[in-house]
């Protein structure tokens, strides 16, 4: 899919204000990917919030999280009309695609989302993240591959999602006992950035 116009449409009066929704199955790393974005914002000196929503089960249920990044203090941390929607499975697509603001952007893992996008007022980027993860010995890293795609498409607009900031964010998000995973995450992000 080709890039149409600027990736992150500005909303409201604030110089920068993004409401991001990430959704998928529990266990796909949806909440983790949200944390990485949140820390990118934090490291860039923005106001940020991260709010998870999931069922009582720890794995396999639906999971989504709301991330707000803004120059102004954040009011409601719950994202109901995302500027940016990162979608990792079919049920989440059905549930949230219509909530994306007109002019918003959607990133889709087309391995797991087979639905067609009928909306014409949003920019859609679609990559086979899960398949890429399987092919490249990056199992469980489809979240980072999809984020990599997002970082690539956003790099022009803001420094916030440059590789340097992203690395800093990963260092904050990965527990100190699992630092070896930072490298794997970066490999997955780089792969996504090439797509």
């Amino acid at each position, binding site marked *: 899919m080709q890039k149409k116009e600027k990736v992150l449409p500005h909303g*409201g*009066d604030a110089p920068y204000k993004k409401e991001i929704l990430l959704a998928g199955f529990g266990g796909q790393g949806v909440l983790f990917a949200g*944390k990485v974005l*949140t820390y990118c914002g*934090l490291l860039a000196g923005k*106001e*940020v*919030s*991260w*709010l*998870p*929503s999931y069922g*009582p089960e720890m794995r396999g249920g639906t999971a989504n999280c709301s991330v707000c990044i803004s120059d102004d203090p*954040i*009011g*409601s*941390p*719950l994202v*109901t*009309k995302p500027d940016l929607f990162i979608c990792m499975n079919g049920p989440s697509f059905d549930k949230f695609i219509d909530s994306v603001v007109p002019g918003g952007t959607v990133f889709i893992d087309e391995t797991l989302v087979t639905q067609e996008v009928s909306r014409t007022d949003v920019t859609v980027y679609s990559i086979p993240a899960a398949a890429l993860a399987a092919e490249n010995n990056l199992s469980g890293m489809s979240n980072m591959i999809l984020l990599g795609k997002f970082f690539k498409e956003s790099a022009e607009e803001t420094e916030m999602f440059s590789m340097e900031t992203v690395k800093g964010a990963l260092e904050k998000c990965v527990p100190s006992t699992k630092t070896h995973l930072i490298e794997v995450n970066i490999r997955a992000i780089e792969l996504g950035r090439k797509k």
Partner: protein
Amino acid sequence: MAGCKSFFGYPITPQTEISAYMAKRMPKEGGVFLQAESEIAAVNMVLGAAAAGVRTMTSSSSPGISLKSEGISYIAGSDLPCVIINVQRGGPGLGGIQPSQADYWQATRALGHGDFHVLVYAPASVQEMVDLVIEAFDRADEYRMPAMLLADGMLGQMMEPVTFPEVKKNVPDKPWATNGHQGKRDHNVANSLFLSPGDLHSKVVRRFEKYKEIEQKLPKAETYKTEDADIIVTAYGAAARIARSAVNMARKEGIKAGLIRPVTLYPFPKEIIRKHTENAKEILCVEMSMGQMVEDVRLSVECKKPVRFYGKTGGLIPEPAEVFEQIKRIEKRIGGAY
């Protein structure tokens, strides 16, 4: 941070994050973390630790707070300080696990049997969760009474940037503590039993004199764009964040809306609300419940102004756009009247 020496918990969603954090943190700070066999046991461990004179706390979510209410009543009746966190979820009964504000009445009216109050703080951000815990410990010690943080699942689980203040060490002396008299004083007794009606009466009356002072000194609320507002939204905690977004949306469309966010729910900031709504035409109370705080708002304005209510319960969170819609409706009505 607040000089808290012990935490007694019991797992319940959505407050498990607090227990998990304390389990890691307390041993490093030379404090105690203990997972009790029940909410009831946990709150009674808090009673023991509070009587021993140390700063102590527990946290739970709605159904667990109901179980703790026995202990909270005894703690209040024994004039002991402690901090209790309620990360509210939907009810009644097992309810749900999504954010809610349905325990306002319980927190401000009915945290246990008997004539008493606990201080109730309503944080609206993660930073405030930190700051108000410290404030709660300080005031609990000052007034020798329990203090509650009434949060909700949204605040309990979200991440936001936080600045942790300096570690505090100046916990006040507690000459009343039952920590062993070491032969230096008469024995202390931590007790809530007063079988003579006269004794119990004067004990409770003295406590209510303390409450009078608290109601003078401690009410706190944040006001936002209220100066020229025709419509004032009142909301606490997470609902206040949503209301704030709605107020911004209204302002953008030229509607003079403002927000009053009570930070203390007991003592309720009646005077602040009365003063800041003097020139307003209508008030809209927004809650994640069927409408509980709205009663206190009506009392605050002595029913002299219309107080409308908008809320959702059961774990549903009102959206800023819905609240904005309510504001617009009010604007239409009062616009015609003036």
